[in-house]
Every structure is written in structure tokens, then in C-alpha cells.
């Protein structure tokens, strides 16, 4: 018989309910199987299991952004090796109660944005609604499809010492965490396959199918195949990873506000293929940011005109705009009476005892009992941390009481609940330790009722002493196992599978913004490689300070100027007085270009642009690809301002940027969007090579030979040349290799030929053909007779230089043309305006 002691030093706490053990130390009945298994497993194997789980998290790249810092590393998601188990009897009660609550809250929203009976009947204080920023006035009177306001709902539960469950909060806007719950299941289950099956743990997939089917069924699509998109606030959001995961899992495109546009009261997705109607949005964007035309004017995260589209009944928004008004804890105390009124039945699951201070008797009670209570803001927009009354001295309590009296309606007081605890594995101490836990469960609309996900997200406090559980402050999670009641052990097979269009849609339309980012990611990645090689060639010659390098340095300096690498850093003091700083001939500009982020076109600044594109493309990139970009971004850190250190940085930059080319061609799905990434690379390389070679063909003969070695270096063909010719570089073979040889991926003609192929593909997929055909320049180059260069006495550079200049122009022209055709509607920044 397993008992608490087999969990090594695991301590029961008489003041808390223990999820696993009864007071005598015996495991609870529904825990017997797992507790036994854990005992048999032993410390070493448990530790191995913890590490396996950790590795799986890293391999899947599951993250949670604590600070939302684009540059900061994403924090790995934490999941404990021991699941959180709920018996089937307990689940029957919980799921019924949570479904009731979802039904209630849906009706409550319908009243608050419709008939408004509850306020008139005095069942809700007006302050809680009219004083709440998330009560969206422009949404009054909007009737969502089928009267359904709430599609996906989450409920935060806590268990008190007597074993009873209490609701501590409602999540009604765009609840987070359901995706993490699936991730936890995928990561933890393989560790327990036999037990998982033997216990008949209920599956999660049906829940998400119901969500998909509901959104598709209710979306106002007038017979079209419904397109549902997941609206994200973007990559800086703390749960962005989860949104990427959910979008993939549900087969919905992940879109930002700027990917959408409202025309004629209908919502459209801007795609490579043009505007595509969106019929439903599952949103993770907060209420007040959703429509800058009607709500907050200080943000353009949302979609201008979205509220009008919803009012016209042309788009389903899940959850309905304005549903965040229910997230106020001030409502909790009024729900029992509202439930009687709206459902005619008692509220099945009680909320934690909550006093809204706006009622005079409640305020008095709260002030008299401050030490026993937790004081919270009634509205999340107040951005106040909860205050524990017992932690205040008497002066602190007096000050708090004064504050409550001044704006009583803005505060609530809640009873302190002693949350339950469960064992969580500590890798540091190699044992199970008690941690405070809370449970978040999810409900989704199904017809007139709600289905509750048989599982959820158990949130685990980061340390033994911590009482508050929020993922923002760190903390771990557990997979939640709801044991089967034996009736429908393989539920997932009973439901028809998704229709083909539901699955294909997600990948089919590429939002224009994503494609634009791919195109620029290609250009910046290639540019870093090019300027990296150029700077290295300069740097190496500067260290040698050999007069023989003078001619070469002159040419390389011109190239560096063309790449605007030598521009002085804009210094406000200097530019204000418009002083012209003298041209810098020493190595300083190079050190700056290599390591100073303030150099506008240097390596760090270009890398930052690359990184910004990549951040927008996170959902399309493999973890390794993403990490390689991150590595590039950190290469220049902690360097000293010397030429040697700069060269060392370049030696790291060049291979990493070359590796990015590998990911481009070997790691990404080759859809139409991908071609833009490749085209970006090709035209950047063609422009760079052409501009470099032009400088050399124009030189006098004796200077020319000296420079050819550097030209081979920056074109990355030194090796090829040596293998072919085994002698000093000479103009004619160098030109053949770098301009005409179509088998050399670093030749101008190679770029032209490859561009031609990719443009052909785009033409068939997107019906696009550039004004100028690259084939005509390619033809001209192929027809160029290198024999003209045999006679060294006669300078023959000009005709070739003209062709190369045409290549350079062609590259930039094509870039503009693609931008005009495909990106303009994505790239226009939106701005708000106000006139009185």
C-alpha cells in the first residue's frame, strides 16, 4: 500500500486539502494506481522522467513570455511530471456546474447588452457595469449569431480545506490556457501510457471539435465554406506560443488586426491571393483594442470597423465584443440571485465569499474584518495588486480603509481561501514537494448548452510558501486527468472527422503581412552575409597594413559606402548643429558597423530587422531556425572595440548567416509564400554581386588584378576559383566564374536564372509576371563575349558594366514591383485621427 511517506519527505499540511492523500496518509481512491506507480518508479527514474518532459517542452518550443520582451528569451513552459487526477464522480458534478455557469454568464451578457432588465431589477449594482471599462457602450444592442455571446469560457477553481470547490474567477473574453492543456497532455501522457489507458482517462479532442463545429456552424457565411481565423494581439503577447499552437491545432489561420480589413461591413483577410472573406474570429485580443474606429483610439492593434461588421451580423466574434465586463470579481456576490432570476435554479458552484464595497453594509463589514480579507480592484483596468489585509500594520489598514471609503465601488474584498496542495517534483531536491494548486477548466458552446473540457490546466505555485498562483510570476502546471466513467472509453472515435476544407484553410491563404516579412527576411539574411564578407575583407587588409592593399581598400571602401556602412552615427548634438564630421579612414567605422546597433546599416541593425521579421514569422519557423536567428542577434554582444574583436565577430556572423540559407532551402514548406523568401535572397545577392563586380571591371589593368582576390572573397568563390585554376586570380576567369557561370550559386547569371524559375512558379500560382522579364537580361549576358577581355591593352569594361548595372536596377525594380503588387495593402500603417 502506497502512502505519503513513499513520496520521500512529502509533508501533508493539516490546514490544506491534499489532492493525493487522505489525512492518514493513504492515497485517495482515484489516486491509488498512480501513487503506487510513482512509488515503484523510484527517485532516479522519476528524475529521468522529469528531464524527458523538460526536453520535450524544449523540443516543441513551448514557451510563455513573462515580460513580453521581443528580445528576451522566451521562458520555457513548465509542466510537472505528476498529473492532476479528478475522479469521474467529482467530474460529473464539476462539469455540470461549470456548464451551468457558462449558460448563466451567456444569458447575463445578453441582458447587459440587450434588454438590461437586471440593472432595473436591482440585481446588479450599476457601478459594476457602468463603471467598468470593459462594458463596451458601442456594443449595446448587437445581437450575435444565435444569441451566443460566450463560445469559449474558462473558470478558475480552488479547493478549500474541507474539499469543496469554489470559483475564484471567470474568464470570458478570450480565455488562455486551453492550448497549454493540450500541450501538457501531449508531453506528459507518453510517460504513463499503460496507466493512462487503464484508468480510461478522458480525451480532450472532442472539446476542440465541438468548438470548431460551433464556430463553423454559427458563422454567418451564407453558404460559403466558413473561414474562421484566430485573432492574436501578436508575438509580444505572453501566451503567443499557445495561440500559434491552437491556431494550428484548430486549423485556423493566425491573424493580427493588420491582416484584416473591413469593407462594406464585412471582414476580409488580406492574402497573397487578394481579399478573402472571414466569417468568424476566435479572438485573443482584449475587448477595448478590437476596433480603433469605435473604441480606444490610442491603439491600432485591432480592426477598424469590426463592431459595425458585428452589428450588421456579418461576422461571428468569439467571444462577443464586450464580454470582458463579466471578469470583474465584483459580480461574484450577485450571481446566486441572478442565477435564480435567469435560470430559475440555484447556482451549483459557489464563488469564494466576495463583498463588493459599493454597498454600505458590505463596506462596513470589510473595514471591520480587514485582517481576514484580501482586497482587490473591482476592475482589471485599475492595474492594482491584491492586498492581503493580514500583511498590513495598523497604519496600513487605516490608509486602506480611507481608500475604500473614497471609491468604495472600485473595490472588492474576498475571503482568503486556503488552497489545496498537491505533490510536484522538485528536480533540485530530487523529491516530491507540496505545492499550492488551482484548476482552470474550459467550456465551449454546443447548441443551447455547453460542453466542458474533460481536463484543464492545473496551475502550480512556484514555491512551497507561495499562495498566489499566476503564470505571470512564474510557476508550473500539471496535466489534468479526468477519469472515465467506463461508459464511453473511446469517445474520440464516435465523432465524425473534420471536413477537408476545415483542415486545408489554415495553410492555404498566406496573410500578406507574413509574406512581406518572409520577403524581407530573405533580403536581410542575405544582406548580413554579404556585408559580413565585405567587412571581413576590409578588416583583414587593415590589420596587415600592407601598402599593396591600397588599391583594394579603395575599392572595398567604395563598396562599403554603397552599402552605407560608413555613415557616421546620427548624433543628435552633432546633427543639430549640422557639423560635418570628417571622413573616417581608420578602422573605427568598421568596428562600429560590426558591433554598434546604432550604426543604421551595420550588422547589429540589419540583424535587428531580420529578427523583427522572424518574430512575425514565428509560427512558420522551426525551433532551430528561430534559434539560429536569435544566435545571430547575440553574436555582437560583449565585444571590445578593436579590429581583432570585430574580425572575430565576423567569423561568427558569416557561418551563422550561411546556416540561415540552409534553413531556407531545407526547412520550410515550399508554398507560394516561401518563394518570396527565396526571391528576396536572390535579388539581394544579385544586386550586391553586380555592384561589386562593376567596381572592378572599370579599373585600370594593374589595379584590377590586385583587387580580384578580394572580389572572390566577398563573392564567396575563392575556393572554387583555386580549385579550378590553381593560380593568382585574373580578370577573365574571375568574370566567367562570378558573372556567367550558371552552375555557380554565387554568380549573377545563376541568380537571374533562378529568379526566372521562381517567377514562373508565382505566375502559375498568383497570376503575376513582372514588367521586365529576367530572361532578357540573362540572354544578353549569355551572349556576352568574354574574349573582349583577352586584349589587356584595350579597356573593355563598359559594355559589361552596363549589363551589370542593369542587373542591379532589375533587382531593386523587381522588389518595388512585388511590394506594389502584393504588400502595399499590408504595409500601409493605420493611424487614428480625432477632430473637434
Amino acid at each position, binding site marked *: 500500500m502506497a502512502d505519503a511517506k513513499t513520496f520521500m519527505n512529502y509533508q501533508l499540511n493539516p490546514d490544506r486539502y491534499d489532492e493525493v492523500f487522505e489525512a492518514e496518509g493513504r492515497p485517495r481512491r482515484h489516486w491509488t494506481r498512480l501513487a503506487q506507480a510513482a512509488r515503484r518508479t523510484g527517485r532516479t527514474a522519476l528524475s529521468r522522467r522529469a528531464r524527458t518532459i523538460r526536453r520535450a517542452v524544449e523540443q516543441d518550443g513551448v514557451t510563455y513570455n513573462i515580460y513580453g520582451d521581443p528580445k528576451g528569451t522566451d521562458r520555457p513552459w513548465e509542466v510537472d511530471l505528476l498529473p492532476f487526477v479528478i475522479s469521474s464522480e467529482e467530474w460529473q458534478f464539476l462539469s455540470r456546474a461549470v456548464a451551468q455557469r457558462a449558460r448563466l454568464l451567456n444569458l447575463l451578457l445578453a441582458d447587459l447588452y440587450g434588454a438590461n432588465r437586471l440593472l432595473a431589477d436591482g440585481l446588479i449594482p450599476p*457601478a459594476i457595469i457602468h463603471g467598468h471599462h470593459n462594458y463596451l*457602450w458601442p456594443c449595446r444592442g448587437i445581437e450575435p449569431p444565435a444569441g451566443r455571446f460566450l463560445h469559449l469560457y474558462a473558470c478558475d477553481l480552488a479547493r478549500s480545506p474541507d474539499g469543496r470547490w469554489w470559483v475564484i474567477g471567470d474568464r470570458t473574453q478570450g480565455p488562455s490556457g486551453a492550448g497549454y492543456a493540450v500541450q501538457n497532455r501531449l508531453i506528459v501522457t507518453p510517460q504513463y501510457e499503460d496507466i493512462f489507458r487503464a484508468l480510461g482517462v478522458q480525451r480532450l479532442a472532442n472539446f476542440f471539435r465541438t468548438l470548431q463545429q460551433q464556430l463553423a456552424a454559427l458563422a454567418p457565411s451564407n453558404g460559403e465554406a466558413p473561414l474562421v481565423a484566430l485573432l492574436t494581439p501578436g508575438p509580444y503577447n505572453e501566451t503567443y506560443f499557445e495561440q500559434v499552437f491552437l491556431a494550428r491545432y484548430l486549423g485556423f489561420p493566425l491573424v493580427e488586426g493588420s491582416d484584416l480589413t473591413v*469593407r*462594406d461591413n464585412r471582414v476580409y483577410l488580406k492574402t497573397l491571393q487578394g481579399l478573402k472573406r472571414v466569417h468568424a474570429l476566435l479572438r485573443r485580443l482584449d475587448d477595448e483594442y478590437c476596433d480603433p474606429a469605435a473604441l480606444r483610439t490610442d491603439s491600432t492593434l485591432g480592426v477598424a470597423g469590426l463592431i459595425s461588421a458585428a452589428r450588421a451580423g456579418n461576422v461571428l466574434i468569439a467571444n462577443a465584443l464586450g464580454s470582458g465586463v463579466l471578469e470583474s470579481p465584483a459580480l461574484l456576490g450577485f450571481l446566486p440571485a441572478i442565477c435564480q432570476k435567469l435560470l430559475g435554479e440555484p447556482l451549483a458552484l459557489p464563488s469564494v465569499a466576495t463583498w463588493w464595497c459599493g454597498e454600505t453594509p458590505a463596506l462596513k463589514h470589510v473595514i471591520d474584518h480587514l485582517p481576514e480579507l484580501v482586497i482587490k480592484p473591482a476592475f482589471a483596468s485599475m492595474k492594482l495588486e491584491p492586498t492581503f489585509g493580514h500583511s498590513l500594520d495598523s497604519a496600513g489598514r487605516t490608509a486602506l480603509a480611507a481608500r475604500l471609503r473614497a471609491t468604495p465601488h472600485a473595490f472588492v474584498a474576498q475571503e482568503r481561501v486556503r488552497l489545496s496542495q498537491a505533490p510536484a517534483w522538485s528536480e533540485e531536491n530530487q523529491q516530491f514537494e507540496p505545492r499550492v494548486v488551482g484548476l482552470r477548466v474550459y467550456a465551449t458552446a454546443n447548441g443551447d448548452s455547453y460542453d466542458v473540457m474533460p481536463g484543464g490546466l492545473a496551475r502550480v505555485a512556484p514555491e512551497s510558501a507561495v499562495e498566489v498562483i499566476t503564470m505571470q510570476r512564474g510557476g508550473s502546471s500539471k496535466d489534468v486527468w479526468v477519469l472515465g466513467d467506463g461508459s464511453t472509453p473511446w469517445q474520440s472515435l464516435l465523432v465524425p472527422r473534420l471536413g477537408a476544407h476545415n483542415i486545408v484553410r489554415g495553410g492555404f491563404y498566406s496573410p500578406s503581412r507574413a509574406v512581406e516579412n518572409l520577403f524581407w527576411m530573405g533580403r536581410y539574411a542575405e544582406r548580413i552575409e554579404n556585408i559580413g564578407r565585405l567587412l571581413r575583407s576590409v578588416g583583414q587588409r587593415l590589420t596587415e597594413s600592407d601598402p599593396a592593399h591600397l588599391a583594394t581598400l579603395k575599392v572595398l571602401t567604395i563598396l562599403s559606402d554603397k552599402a552605407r556602412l560608413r555613415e557616421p552615427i546620427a548624433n543628435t548634438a552633432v546633427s543639430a548643429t549640422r557639423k560635418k564630421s570628417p571622413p573616417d579612414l581608420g578602422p573605427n567605422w568598421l568596428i562600429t558597423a560590426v558591433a554598434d546597433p546604432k550604426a543604421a546599416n551595420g550588422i547589429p541593425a540589419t540583424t535587428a530587422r531580420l529578427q523583427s521579421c522572424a518574430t512575425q514569422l514565428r509560427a512558420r519557423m522551426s525551433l532551430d531556425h528561430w534559434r539560429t536567428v536569435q544566435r545571430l542577434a547575440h553574436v555582437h554582444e560583449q565585444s571590445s572595440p578593436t579590429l581583432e574583436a570585430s574580425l572575430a565577430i565576423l567569423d561568427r556572423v558569416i557561418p551563422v548567416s550561411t546556416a540561415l540559407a540552409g534553413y531556407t532551402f531545407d526547412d520550410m514548406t515550399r508554398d507560394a509564400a516561401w518563394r518570396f523568401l527565396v526571391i528576396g535572397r536572390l535579388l539581394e545577392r544579385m544586386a550586391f554581386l553586380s555592384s561589386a563586380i562593376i567596381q572592378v571591371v572599370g579599373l585600370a589593368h594593374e589595379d584590377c588584378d590586385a583587387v580580384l582576390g578580394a572580389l572572390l572573397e566577398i563573392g564567396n568563390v575563392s575556393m572554387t576559383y583555386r580549385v579550378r585554376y590553381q593560380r593568382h586570380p585574373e580578370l577573365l576567369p574571375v568574370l566567367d566564374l562570378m558573372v556567367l557561370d550558371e552552375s555557380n550559386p554565387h554568380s549573377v547569371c545563376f541568380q537571374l536564372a533562378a529568379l526566372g524559375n521562381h517567377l514562373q512558379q508565382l505566375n502559375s500560382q498568383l497570376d503575376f509576371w513582372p514588367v521586365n522579364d529576367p530572361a532578357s537580361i540573362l540572354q544578353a549576358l549569355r551572349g556576352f563575349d568574354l574574349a573582349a577581355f583577352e586584349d589587356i591593352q584595350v579597356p573593355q569594361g563598359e559594355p559589361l558594366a552596363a549589363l551589370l548595372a542593369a542587373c542591379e536596377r532589375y533587382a531593386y525594380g523587381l522588389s518595388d514591383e512585388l511590394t506594389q503588387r502584393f504588400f502595399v495593402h499590408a504595409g*500601409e*500603417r493605420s*493611424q*487614428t*485621427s480625432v477632430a473637434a
Partner: protein
Amino acid sequence: MSPNNARRYKVDHYTAYRYSEPVMLSHQQLHLAPRQLDYQAIHAHEVVVKPAPTQRRQLTDPFGNPVTEIAIEAAHRSLDIIARSTVSVTERPTIEAAQTPAWETVRDALAYRAAWQPPAALLEATQFLFESPYARVKRILRAYAENCFAPGQPVLSAAVALMAKIHGEFKFDAGATNVTTPVMKFFEQKRGVCQDFTHLMISCLRSTGLAARYVSGYLLTHPAPGKPRRVGADASHAWVALFIPGEGWVDLDPTNNLRPALEHVTVSWGRDFSDVTPLRGVINGGGEQTLEVKVTVEPI
């Protein structure tokens, strides 16, 4: 109230945006139509938009104001909106400030208590009782208003005293603030325009537990003696309305320290400026934008 006292006005409100780059898509929301009221009749109203909108819709907002929503889906470099209205304003019922109920009575009537079943007018007033995007409820503001609200003071007398206090201590200065200036900044710097005066007085009233709303409209200005009226020299105006149970809403203009009568034309009301912004919008593209607003109120 004699119809002979009616005053008739022609109001032109002209708004012009110029953009340095083409605007590809523009969504605009217009609060430019004067409300029909017991003391205000609308004889004519039209809004002309150039370029012609792709979409145009008439709605009523949650506060009962007429709203026009337009969308322009063709590229354009300028946007001109001309609202022309002909209205007549008549005298309102007289309300003797000294006869109004004590301010505490009004405050308590608006306060929620168990088993409260508020009459419709009171419930509606609670929409204007709490914080809103531009109005704050703060202890420091209640303290500022406190000496106007002596115990037992009739609510309108107290509000008139508050209006006089704000008018006396704050300076009108068109350059000191813009349309997004937070009320607490105005409270500190003590200079601003009618929008700021109005937001401050609303905030003080709500901090005291009273319901106050933001009224946007126009004010007849008087040219200097002997000078002709300058077309377009005026601006849109804003003032406060205070809720008094039994009486309804009473207007107070803290910028001019007076109770609006025959020279104020009412357009819209809401919790604050954000609800009744004359023209607000979102554009795609446009580059740099410049804005010109001209208002003319002409007695006819």
C-alpha cells in the same frame, strides 16, 4: 415660455484633412448632427463629404445621439466634411438653484443599495456617475470641490459654485492642451480649453457622487463692437449637464461660468469627449496629416 424668444441659427462646421500620402481606406464616425430637444428644433441638417464615401450609414448611439458612419475605400489625399445645420433654440424651464434638493439627497438617491429598483431616469443617470476614459473619480477632486458642497447645500447652488470656482482658478488657453490631454494634467497646469474645463467639472461632480454628462455643441460668439462676424472663427464647444432627480439634466458651462440658455446649440452628449467626438476615424496610409476646423454660428 414664449416662442417669440426663439433664436434661429445657421451653423457651419467644416473639417478638412490633408494627407502627404494617399489614404487607401478610411473609416470615420461623425457626431455632427444637432439633437432634437424640447428646447431645440432642427429645421435643416446636411453633411457633405468629399470624396464621396463608399459606405454611409445613419445610426443612433447608446446615448441617443445621431451618428453617421462613413467608409471611403478609394485612394484619396484629402477629406472634407461640411456639416450645415439650421436650428432654433427656445427658452428652457426655469430652475431655481436654491429650490433644488440638498446635494446629499441626490447623491444618496443615485447610490445602489439592496433591493434597489431604480426608476428609469435614475438608472440612466448612473451611466454618468463613474469614471470614463476622460473623466476621473478621485479623492483629490472631491477635496477640490468640497468647499462648494457644504452640508445641506442645494445641489444646483453647489454645482454653480463649483462652476464659478473652476472658472475663476483655471485659465482659457487654446495652446495649452490638445484633444487627448488627461484631465489631471489640466488640473495641475490650470490652463486649457472648454473640453478640459468640462472634463474637470464632470470629474469633480462624479467624485462627489453626482451624475454629470459631457455635452458637445456650439456657442454663439459675439464679434468685437463695430466688427463684422468672422466666418469660421469659432470652434466647437462643450459644457456640463448635471442630473437632478425630478428636474432632469441642467446645463452648466464652466468655461464661461454661465448656465446655457439661448446661445448654446446642443449636438450630442455622452460620458465624456470620447463618446461624442465630432469626428474620429482610422485611416490606412496617409503619411503626415494636417487638420483644419472652421465653425461659424450665425444668427438668422
